[in-house]
């Protein structure tokens, strides 16, 4: 009896220890970000002897961290807002009006999810520059322009997930609303959209992970310093300075803090959303 209990405690302890070992790289950047240079190279895996925040201060300043967080936040939130609004509307319409056009467009949306971004990045940039030059609408190096592109790239996944969910809910509620005098707009927003909440959560989670971390697309369009998102300012930081690793590690710690906060707050939704997105995608 006692030996099995001991065995169980041991097994649990070993599992936790192995998980901690798994997160070793995080520990490495965390502990060294507080050390002095000499202390760091003396022993990289020891705990810091004193907590010096000097590298954090300089890293925050060099990365222009708070501007980057603000940019990333605006970009992510607004992009997801438009993706959710427009893909839910479109998916509902496609599911409820079963004509050939709906089927064709839906299949096209799903099929294009296979196209890797690298295949269209160059012509996309050409086209966006062309729109800028011809119509005077700034599409490159502009946050609204980038949001426009995220809407286009997020459409496939968004419509696909919403479409799957709408097909599974009965149409009778919507018909009742129509009989009660609701027009199509009102029926969608007051009856249908609230029912789509589980899918909305999935779309939000998947798109947060995608847009917050995306590097290649923003690096092609956002050229001015004031527009930089977190991945871009991190890349610039590592590219520009002769790296002082203490400072670099402090920079990495602060860049993952927003992610960790997001994870701790929405853990349940994240795990469910990622599972749903993967299984249906």
């Amino acid at each position, binding site marked *: 009896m006692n030996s099995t209990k001991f065995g*169980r405690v041991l097994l649990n302890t070993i*599992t*936790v220890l192995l*998980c901690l070992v*798994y*997160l*070793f*790289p995080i520990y*490495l950047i965390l502990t*060294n970000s507080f050390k002095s240079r000499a202390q760091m*190279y003396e022993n*990289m*895996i020891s705990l810091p002897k004193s907590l010096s925040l000097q590298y954090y201060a300089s890293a925050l300043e060099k990365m222009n961290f708070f501007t980057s967080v603000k940019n990333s936040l605006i970009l992510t939130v607004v992009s997801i807002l438009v993706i959710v609004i427009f*893909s839910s*509307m*479109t998916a*509902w*319409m496609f599911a*409820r009006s079963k004509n050939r056009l709906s089927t064709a*467009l839906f299949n*096209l*949306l799903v099929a*294009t999810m*296979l*196209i*890797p971004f*690298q*295949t*269209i*990045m160059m*012509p996309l940039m050409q*086209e966006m520059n062309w729109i800028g030059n011809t119509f005077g609408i700034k599409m490159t190096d502009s946050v609204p322009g980038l949001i426009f592109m995220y*809407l*286009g790239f997020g*459409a496939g996944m968004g*419509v696909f997930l919403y479409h799957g969910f709408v097909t599974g809910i009965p*149409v009778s509620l919507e018909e009742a609303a*129509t009989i009660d005098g609701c027009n199509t*707009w009102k029926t969608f927003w007051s009856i249908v959209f609230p029912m789509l909440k589980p899918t909305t959560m999935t779309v939000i989670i998947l798109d947060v*992970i995608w847009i*917050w*971390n995306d*590097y*290649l697309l923003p690096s092609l369009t956002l050229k001015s310093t004031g527009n930089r998102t977190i*991945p871009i300012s*991190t*890349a610039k930081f590592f590219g520009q300075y002769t790296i002082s*690793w203490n400072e670099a*590690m402090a920079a*990495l710690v602060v860049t*993952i803090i927003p*992610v960790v906060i*997001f*994870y701790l707050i929405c*853990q349940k939704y994240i*795990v469910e959303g*990622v*599972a749903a997105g*993967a*299984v249906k995608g």
Partner: protein
Amino acid sequence: MKIKKGWYALFTAPLMLVFFCVVVIPFFIGIGYSFFSWDGLAKHRAVFVGFQNFINVFQDGRFISSALRTTVFTLIAVLTVNILGIFFALVVTTKLRVRNLARTMLFMPYLIGGLILGYIWKAVFQEYFLNIGWGNWTTDSVKGIAAMVIVTTWQMAGYVMIVYITGIMAIPNDVMEAASVDGAGYFQTLFKVKFPLLMPSFTICLFLTLSNCFKIYDVNVSLTGAGPGNALEMYSLNIYNEIFSLSNFGYGQAKAIIFFLIIAVVTLAQVTITKKREVAM
């Protein structure tokens, strides 16, 4: 339900317009570009060269070795990600007290973007390894690939773990009970009962890991770069450099089209093959 044409257009046209503008049109422009020779400057005319770009691809040593390297990397990483992911899923679906804590910790890396992950691991493979006398892995043509495999595995194992957990949870209890009543041992149950019933999860995870690994870009950029003599340049980075560093827009685009074809063919073939091996529950 009857929907008027006006509402149909209002609900679907905005998203479809953006989607065509961002994804469909650039895709076709891109196919066009791949038949031209152009340096990307507006004042220079693009010259039609037919299939010459596609022929040149096969005589481009830097490209061929980059494509082969990416293939080898993908094969290894798909294996390591899935093996580790299944192992994690099996551990956190046991009755261990700490299973939820373990799941939380193992999934964490997936939320940090590839670019930041690459830099975090650079602290390990460069600074820490130099510190303990193992040499710098990020500039070595073999160890650099190994480093990328490790980082990709670290990032994706927790992700596929979530999908495998969903699959394991879906296996009905009575199936497991029947197996244990029939006297099946742990490994017998694992290989003869669990794994065959997990085929749908395999299909999904192989698809996700195959295409994600083949498209590796962020980790490549941040962890190693193209490396000495371009010995660590992956396919995506090769396309990027061809277009934006060497200014061979048409030629680089031809590589991008081939990139799309490879991904489309391989992932569709994989899904067809593994789908056939799924067994009915």
